[in-house]
């Protein structure tokens, strides 16, 4: 009896797995240049512009974090404003005790990371939709607890002390640089995280959780880590917010509108890509600046655009670019190159 002769695939000779396309080295150089130019802004542009940019930095940091949570770890959180508020309040508390808010910033961020641990323990067992609202309830609870303490302003908040000594120009510059530093660090962290083994685990989870689990990936641990990192990032953004506003008010920092903004910036730009939040933040800022005087309108339009994008252009604006040009500025995937040189990346579903 002859053996099975049905054709199976020929052995894969000549295939290589590479990390990225050629354009990466250029991206690194360009990114560095951009950061340097941005850092020089306080010397070149008006303070009005730097103020807008600080807002953009905050939103970009938040969007990157939300992207990490939802796009990579599959955690849809509608309560990240809780960490934003915590970060702001940690800075406030330390400033009330004499520490400079700028020095307090990194401490506040770390503190938020620590706070993330018990919060994760509370909500980690819930399923997707319920997890989302639970994080919202947590944020609301944190706000209510904080409002009980009149020493930190109770329901109406307090101005942020410790910055009166600085001249306005210097204050604007320092605030701007703090915002820039936080954003750069946040994006660098996300990039390195996704390139690491954790990143591989996360992508595996995103693509097929059951398969990831069965191949040994510590799904729970990976998700917790992401939750903590996101807590730190959002906390840092909150600290920058406090500094830029020079006051901390509970209703302002704990509003769920922050989640809406970071979620929609991510969706519109492109979930699951590092470049996405950048584009999304840009769109958001444009909308906000053009419609700023129409109070609720930019949120209405933002919501509508997000709905349309989520339904019809799932991969967002960057996704549309990516699928046409196969362009990745921040390479975190792998390319399979056939012997004849054409790369083929595995297809990705939501």
């Amino acid at each position: 009896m002859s053996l099975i002769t049905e054709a199976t695939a020929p052995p894969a000779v000549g295939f290589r797995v590479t990390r990225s396309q050629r354009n990466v080295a250029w991206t690194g150089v360009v990114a560095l240049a951009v950061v340097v130019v941005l850092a020089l802004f306080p010397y070149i542009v008006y303070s009005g512009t730097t103020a807008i940019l600080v807002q953009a930095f905050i939103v970009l940091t938040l969007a990157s974090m939300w992207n990490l949570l939802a796009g990579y770890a599959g955690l849809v959180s509608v309560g990240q404003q809780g960490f934003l508020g915590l970060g702001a309040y940690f800075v406030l508390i330390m400033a009330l005790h004499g520490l400079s808010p700028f020095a307090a910033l990194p401490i506040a961020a770390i503190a938020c990371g620590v706070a993330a641990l018990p919060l994760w323990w509370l909500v980690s067992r819930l399923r997707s939709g319920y997890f989302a609202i639970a994080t919202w309830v947590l944020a609301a609870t944190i706000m209510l607890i904080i409002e009980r303490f009149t020493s930190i302003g109770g329901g109406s908040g307090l101005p942020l002390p410790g910055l009166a000594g600085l001249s306005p120009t210097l204050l604007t510059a320092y605030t701007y640089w703090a915002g820039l530093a936080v954003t750069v660090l946040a994006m660098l962290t996300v990039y390195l995280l996704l390139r690491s083994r954790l990143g591989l685990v996360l992508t595996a989870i995103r693509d097929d959780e059951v398969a990831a689990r069965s191949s040994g990936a510590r799904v729970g641990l990976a998700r917790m880590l992401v939750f903590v990192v996101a807590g730190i990032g959002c906390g840092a953004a909150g600290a920058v917010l406090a500094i830029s506003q020079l006051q901390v008010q509970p209703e302002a920092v704990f509003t769920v509108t922050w989640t809406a903004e970071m979620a929609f910036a991510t969706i519109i730009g492109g979930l699951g890509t590092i470049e996405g939040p950048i584009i999304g933040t840009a769109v958001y800022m444009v909308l906000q600046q053009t419609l700023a005087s129409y109070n609720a309108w930019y949120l209405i339009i933002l919501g509508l655009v997000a709905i349309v994008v989520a339904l019809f252009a799932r991969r967002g604006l960057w996704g549309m670019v990516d699928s046409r040009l196969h362009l990745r500025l921040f390479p975190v995937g792998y390319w399979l190159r056939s012997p004849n040189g054409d790369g083929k990346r595995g297809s990705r579903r939501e």
Partner: protein
Amino acid sequence: MAWVNAIIQGILTGGLYALFACGLSLMFGVMKVVNLAHGDLAVVAGYIAIGIIFVTHVPVLWSVVIVVPIMALIGYVLQRTVIQSALDRGVLTTLIVTLGLSLVIENGLLQFFTANTRGIGPGMTLVTGSFTLGPQIEIGYLLLVIFAVAVAVLLGLQYFLSGSKYGRLIRAVADDKEAAQLAGADYRHVFGIASALALGTVALGGIAYGMYSSLDPTAGTDTILLFAFVAVVIGGLGSLWGTLIGGIVLGVAQQIGAQINISDEVLAGYIVFLAVLVLRPQGLTFRRAQT
């Protein structure tokens, strides 16, 4: 005695919360989706009722009869169009889309109606009145009526789900929608019916809330959605009567919190929620099968 009064108030408020929650529980049970705009649609119902009363001067209870079916219809249409499209694309998309809806509705209301609160006057002296049960125990008729309505609604839902053709289909689709398709059922239509029920009941809750308290654009999320969710979790995911029990526990916790410190009312409720989350994640009446 003030405590007894508080507890009774809490129990009765549970009825209102059950109205908020049963729709949410139903939608999650059937479609595995949380509609983040759930509460906002209740507020819309309230505003429509206010509008109708303002324009036509009909008695308040008439507005209920008009608005609830309209909202149920809106629920069906919304489900068949927007939400089904989102569901087809995954859980994440559904959460984003409903969050977007919530944002649009709230800010739309804010834009056109301002942030002022509005109330729906109960209109009938009977309903505004109250009776005393003992020293310091005063029970408002309105709250009693709301509680009774909630119980009636839950009974109706239970009967519908267990005894009727569509009730059976809803439960079948919730168990296995593909198998239901193989039996000839269009699950999209069944989802629509479940949505209609959910929105009808929450609309009732919204109008009731407008009568009992007052409505403002953010009440949809701040109050209705979050309280509904808390009630569902405390009472047990997947249990219809659990939403009443959860609502009662929430109401009582809030009233006790208010007795301790007037501004701790909402916080007390959330703390109990967190305790339940820690101690018994399935809630107080966890059952594998739905009623």
